[in-house]
Structure formats: structure tokens, C-alpha cells
């Protein structure tokens, strides 16, 4: 335990999941359509959580669907060097960035007022009835986009820093720094 690296190397529990994903992919490639259903069932909700925590407010199903469609079209290129879920997060994140760019262009054209965005947030907040969860949500919304992505992947999905770095496109060390900065910011917000 004195060596953090060795401690992280002994972090396990995901290898069985990875192995199961590889088996399902092989079955699907062999023509088993039910394997595709099981793959979606295993990862769809995690992808949806990541989308929502990253600020995606609407059309989450469409985003998850697009992620899987793109992934299944590119399955021949998946070599299993990272976990399948991490690979899915990478694809979803790219789609999210594309959406944000398109949304920004659209907003630049239509110049949506701040009141409209606030109305959408208020409607979603009403779903989250618990006051503590509303505060947690508000704390996460104060994070930078990268901090929010890293924090949600680490806390919400339990990814390692190495997996987060692959999904977000950064280094393992940078992912760790983003996580601890995010944690500090959340604590400070809750202490206010």
C-alpha cells in the first residue's frame, strides 16, 4: 500500500467485465444479434449518465444510439487495448463535442436569450426533488467541462485515471489533477 502505483495495479474487478464484452463482440461478429442487445444493456445507462453529467439535456437516447451505431460500425477497429466501455465513452465524447459545436453555431445564429436556458434548467431541476442532490448538481455545474467529465467518469462510473485519460484524451496525471481539483471545488461549494 505504500506504493500507490502497485496499489492501483492491484485494482481489479473490471477484467471480468472486459472479458465479457469481448465475448459478446465475438458473438455478434459471428452473427448473434442477441449479443448486440446485451452489449447495449450493459453500457447504455452509463453512457446516458455521462451524457447528462456532461450537460446534455435532451435527446440523450439519440446520443446513446448514435454512440452505439458508430461503435458497431467500427468494431473491427476495436482491438481491446482499452476497455470497451472506455472506448464507448471516447466515441460519445466526440459526438458530444460535435453537438456542442453545432449547438453553438445554432445559438450564434438565433441568439437564444439566457431566460430560455434558465427555463430548461428549472424544468430539469424540478425532477430532482432532493435538496442535497440539487446542491450536488449545482456544484457540478460550476466545474469546468473537463473537470466535470473527469469527475463524473471517476465518481459516476468508477473509471481509473488511465481509462479516464483515454476517454477524455489527456494524460493519467492530468486526469488525477482534474479530479482532485473538482473534488475540492465541490466541497467548497457545499461548505458555502
Amino acid at each position, binding site marked *: *500500500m505504500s506504493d*500507490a502505483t502497485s*496499489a492501483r495495479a*492491484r*485494482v*481489479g*474487478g*473490471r477484467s471480468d467485465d472486459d472479458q465479457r464484452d469481448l465475448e459478446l463482440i465475438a458473438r*455478434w*461478429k*459471428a*452473427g*448473434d*444479434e442477441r*449479443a*448486440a*442487445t446485451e452489449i*447495449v*444493456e450493459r453500457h*447504455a*445507462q452509463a*453512457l*446516458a*449518465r455521462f*451524457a*447528462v*453529467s456532461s450537460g446534455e439535456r435532451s435527446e*440523450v*437516447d439519440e446520443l*446513446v*444510439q448514435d454512440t*452505439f*451505431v458508430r461503435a*458497431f*460500425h467500427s*468494431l*473491427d477497429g476495436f482491438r481491446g487495448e482499452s476497455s470497451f466501455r472506455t472506448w464507448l465513452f471516447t466515441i460519445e465524447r466526440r459526438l458530444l463535442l460535435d453537438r456542442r459545436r453545432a449547438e453553438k453555431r445554432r445559438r450564434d445564429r438565433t441568439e437564444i436569450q439566457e431566460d430560455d436556458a434558465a427555463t430548461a434548467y428549472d424544468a*430539469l431541476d424540478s*425532477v*430532482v426533488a*432532493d435538496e*442535497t*442532490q440539487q446542491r*450536488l*448538481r449545482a456544484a*457540478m455545474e460550476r466545474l469546468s467541462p473537463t473537470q466535470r467529465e473527469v*469527475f*463524473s467518469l*471517476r*465518481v*459516476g462510473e*468508477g473509471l*481509473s485515471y488511465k481509462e479516464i485519460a483515454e476517454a477524455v484524451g489527456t494524460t493519467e496525471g492530468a486526469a*488525477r489533477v482534474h479530479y482532485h481539483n473538482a*473534488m*475540492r471545488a*465541490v*466541497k467548497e461549494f*457545499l*461548505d458555502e
Partner: protein
Amino acid sequence: MNDCPNAEMRDLLPDLLHERLDAPIRAAVAAHVGTCEDCRAELALLGGVQRMLTKQTPRVDVAYVVGALPLASKQRASKQPAARVARRRWADWRVAAAVAVLAVGGTSAALMERSNAIVIPGDTVQVPQSNPTPEPVQATPAIVASQPAPAADRLAASRSDTRTPVRTADTEQVATTANDGIGVGRSIGDLNQKQLRALLDDIDNMQAVPITEPEPVSLKVDATRSSSVPEGM
């Protein structure tokens, strides 16, 4: 909310939350959390964030997602030959149509060429395309001059496969001269000395009468000039 001074332990709290730790490490981290109030508070915070993220996320319609996925590779592979067969059938039809067009067109072209190349025995009319030899010499220069080439072409074009000799007034004239020793369709180079002399004699004795009556013309008579030129010339 304070941070635990044991950064390594704090770093493993999310893994403890998601049960990603091997048993020995998990036991050690759990023991630390049991004695560290800051880590217990942080672990509770992490649990709250996880629940919040789960709660705020709508349930994904798995069937909706699966419905948009591509077919499995094996099924795609099994369907590709069918597509190729369909394309091959379509290509076969196109090839058959092209062959039919070529056959009809070729037959038509062959028939046209064949009808143009018919040689009628005893006829002095030559088809330019099928006869590379020089124009046959007609018996009488006046008669030759009265047979324009287009007329010969029209004559040849109007012939059918019956190969029936077509005789016109012009050909009757040629036939008349042929009786004096010049074979029909023969060139002047084929004549011997005797035949050539007979031909020249006939030409000398022939009256230069046109085969049709000339159009009446009016002539201006100019006393000062020795010749006259018809109007319009």
C-alpha cells in the same frame, strides 16, 4: 469539509465505492475509512454524487438503440452474395440489350451495304463505293454527259434484291452502241485496235442531237459583235 492527509487513501475512495478493489486493498481502505472521519464524509459525498447522476439520468430505451444497430458481420457477409447476384442479373440484362442493339444495327448496316453493292449484269451504271476502277467509258460522249452521277446513285439505291435489270432511255442508247463491238461494262482499255477505230467512226457519224428538245432561248443580236450570248448566261 476537510481533506484527509492520506492522499493515497482518498484517491482510492471512488474505487471502493464501485467495488473495484481487490480484497486485500479493499480491506485496508475500509479499515482506514472506519477510523477517518474526513474519508467517511468524502465517501458519503461520492455516494451522493453517484446517486444524483443515476437519478437525473433518464432510462435509455434499449430496443430503440438496438433497432438502429447494423447487422452482425456474418449476416452482412451472407447478404452480400445475394446483392452481387442481383447486380449480376441486372448486368446480364444490360449485356443482352446491348447485344440485341448491336445485332439489329449490324444487320441493318450489312443489308444497306449489300443493297448498294449489287452488280446488275449488263448495266453500265457503276456504284462508286463498290467499284474502285475508273468510270466506264460510255459509248457516246453526249450520252455520258446526259447521265448525271446522282441519277445513277438513285438508280442503284432504288434497286431491290430481285436483280432485275433496269433499263432507261439512257441505257437503251448504250445498248445500241454496244452492238458495234464494245462490251457493256468494259473500259476503253479493253478494246482492241479494230474496235477502237469502229467506235471513233461511229462517233464521227453520230448526229449531235440532244435526247430532249432544248428550251427556247432568246438571243440578242448585236451587229457589232461576231458572237452572241444567250440571256442569263
